[in-house]
């Protein structure tokens, strides 16, 4: 009975502690890391990962996974560029990219939620097919000569980071609130925790799964548009490996890869930790070749913590069952 009293530690904690530790070291050894310019560049480089990760968190919370987001990101980027070149204003081009993203996400959603194809297979297929379809249709050519109005979303170069930050902050807040305070958010957790139980409680778990993929597509589209405006050309091979960065960030943020448990706050922390570590190495004078290795170690540590925890819980539960 007493066991109910002490609630378990938040799963976001390890990532938060790691960020604090890293910041501490940097503040002592390389305070230059915290220069405004560096933080801004860091943010701009990781904003797309963050926004895609918001959608990915929802998908993973329903107990699914989407590994096609890198390919979808490329298609949405190219779509945004093509729309911009027709003279449409940047916000409309961004909206167009979102619509394309929703379409691609919905496709995954149908495959997984209604045709019952395991999400790892369905989105693996989507990842390969989308990437090659894009390569075939663009013949590898970059989208160039983007109109000036598209650059920096129509803002001054100095104003753009503020705008992007505001967008990212609003999205983070909106998704976090939705997961916490909307019935739909509750359905996502219920579906990911125990989809059969959720179905027996009258939740349309297929719809929930479908909608989470479609929503993830929208985030991918928006992220693509916000990323595309930073450059004056769009290579069709953009976003290669993005899905892995995104999933890594979600997992490092404490979200259970099996679904049902995790928070948006955790994902934000995960993105910060994995995004901050690479440049931090440069500042600390460690060879950048270590970046991937260290990121890998962080992911492994996060998954190990999770595995140990669920292992312990399972033991407790079997004991409880036998008792």
């Amino acid at each position: 009975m007493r066991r109910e009293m002490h609630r378990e530690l938040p799963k976001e904690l390890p990532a938060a502690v790691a960020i604090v530790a890293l910041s501490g070291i940097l503040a002592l050894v390389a305070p230059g890391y915290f220069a405004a310019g560096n933080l801004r560049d860091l943010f701009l480089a990781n904003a797309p990962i963050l926004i895609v990760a918001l959608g990915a968190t929802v998908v993973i919370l329903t107990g699914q996974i989407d590994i096609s987001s890198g390919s979808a990101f490329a298609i949405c980027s190219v779509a945004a560029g093509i729309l911009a070149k027709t003279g449409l204003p940047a916000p409309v081009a961004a909206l167009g990219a979102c619509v394309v993203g929703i379409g691609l996400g919905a496709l995954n959603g149908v495959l997984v939620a209604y045709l019952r194809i395991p999400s790892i297979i369905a989105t693996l297929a989507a990842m390969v097919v989308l990437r090659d379809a894009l390569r075939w249709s663009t013949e590898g050519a970059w989208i160039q000569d983007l109109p000036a109005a598209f650059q920096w979303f129509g803002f001054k170069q100095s104003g753009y980071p503020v705008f992007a930050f505001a967008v990212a902050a609003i999205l983070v807040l909106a998704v976090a609130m939705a997961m916490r305070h909307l019935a739909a958010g509750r359905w996502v957790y219920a579906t990911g925790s125990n989809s059969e139980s959720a179905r027996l409680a009258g939740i349309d778990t297929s719809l929930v799964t479908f909608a989470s993929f479609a929503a993830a597509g929208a985030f991918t589209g928006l992220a693509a548009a916000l990323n595309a405006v930073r450059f004056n050309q769009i290579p069709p091979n953009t976003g290669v490996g993005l899905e892995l960065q995104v999933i890594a960030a979600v997992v490092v943020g404490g979200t259970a890869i099996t679904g049902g448990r995790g928070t948006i706050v955790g994902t934000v922390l995960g993105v910060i930790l994995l995004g901050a570590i690479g440049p931090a190495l440069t500042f600390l004078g460690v060879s950048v070749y270590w970046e991937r290795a260290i990121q890998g170690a962080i992911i492994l540590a996060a998954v190990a913590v999770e595995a140990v925890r669920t292992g312990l819980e399972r033991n407790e539960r079997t004991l409880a069952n036998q008792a």
Partner: protein
Amino acid sequence: MTIPHLAARFITKSFAGVQALRKVSFDLNGGEVHAIIGENGAGKSTLIKIMTGAVKADSGEIAVSGRIVPEMDPATARALGIAAIYQQPSLFPDLTVAENIALALESGHPFRRVRWRERNQQASELLRRVGSGTDPRRRASSLSMPEQQMVEIAKAIGANARVLIMDEPTASLMHRETETLFGVIASLRREGVGIIYISHRLEEVSSIADRITVLRDGETVATFQRGEASRQQLIALIAGRTDVESFANRENRDGEVVLELRGLSSRGGLRDIHLALKAGEILGVAGLVGSGRTRLAKALFGLAPADSGDILLRGRSVCIGSPEDAIRLGIGYVPEDRRQHGIILEMPISANVSLANMKRVSRHGLLRASVEHHLAEEYRERLRIKASSVEADTSTLSGGNQQKVALARWLAIDPLVLILDEPTQGVDVGAKSEIHNLIVELASRGVAILMISSELEEIFAISDRIAVMHRGAIRGILPREQATQENILSLALEDRLA
């Protein structure tokens, strides 16, 4: 005096404080068919599991051919020639028949060479012995139920089983296949194999068993030689005592008809179900496992909609195609196996309570935490759920309290009809009577209740009427006053040999 092939003496076993077996003794001679009969939960499966080493007894001993086996485990049992065949065949579906048989028989180092021709020859030889013409190269998944059953028997024979335990082997067999199986049993008996035969079908048991042992509530009630006991006697012994506490006098038992079923049938196994359930009434649904009780619940809750027939709710014909439909119409369902299906363990009590009725705790789609909290608090008090707080994870609660959370979820939708599937399974005695009281209280508030239970005592304790199901059909509906354990069991057990 002959030494029995297998003897179990004074076996006692309890699970979680519940006594499953109490000083049970049982023996089996070579060349004998010894049947064990008893209600669901009488301890038959536990006894078998102890004899095959799948479960350890708390006390008592097992002797094989007169020698006491100190530590029975599955490998030892196999080495001693004890084999078991369960109701559901347990073949590896993606392997061939020959491979399945070989896995049971062959041993050696992992890199030994497989001699395919010998394997297949051995398999077809064994299959021939049990009268099965199945090609050993076929994949197990392509076999019908009875074919799989035969492969299981072939496996057992190949392992030179001296004791063969069969648990409801005919449950999935047709009449002719049953006869084939009986032929195989007869020839095994001639070869000196001892067979423990477990079945609900009294006719079958009477026709093939040399001895019959009746188990009730974990104790051996009686053992008869063939022909010593009549069917009536056996039923009376299986049922046992007839005095049970009851809640006979209750108000509000004659409300309007809320739920009516007219000729409900499904390919999944429901056959022409007719039923009328009144507001405030508790209808107990009795029957053996597999008699279609859960199937009926699933049809009513939209999980496995019926193929034909009508469901009328308050006189209006309704279509229930999904759980959402059922909930909208005011039907709640507390499923069997609450840990898997009834509640979400990782979620707090409050979220579990509101899950089927989120409208009640939200405005414009926005959840209102305080309303949700108060709703959960209300039910925590009403159902006396023991928890530190309604925000505690449901996984931290005891079984009885978890079941109350599952109930609370459905009370929160204000149901017209509440379907309960084994509502007190795995719940301790105290919580059990609390849950019974709750169900009665709900009924007196006008909820129509359909309660499926394998415990006759429970059915007797709180039902107003008792429906008995048998092979997908309702065999009879008895008012409680007229129902006795004997006549219910006789409806539930009755064979329909073609």
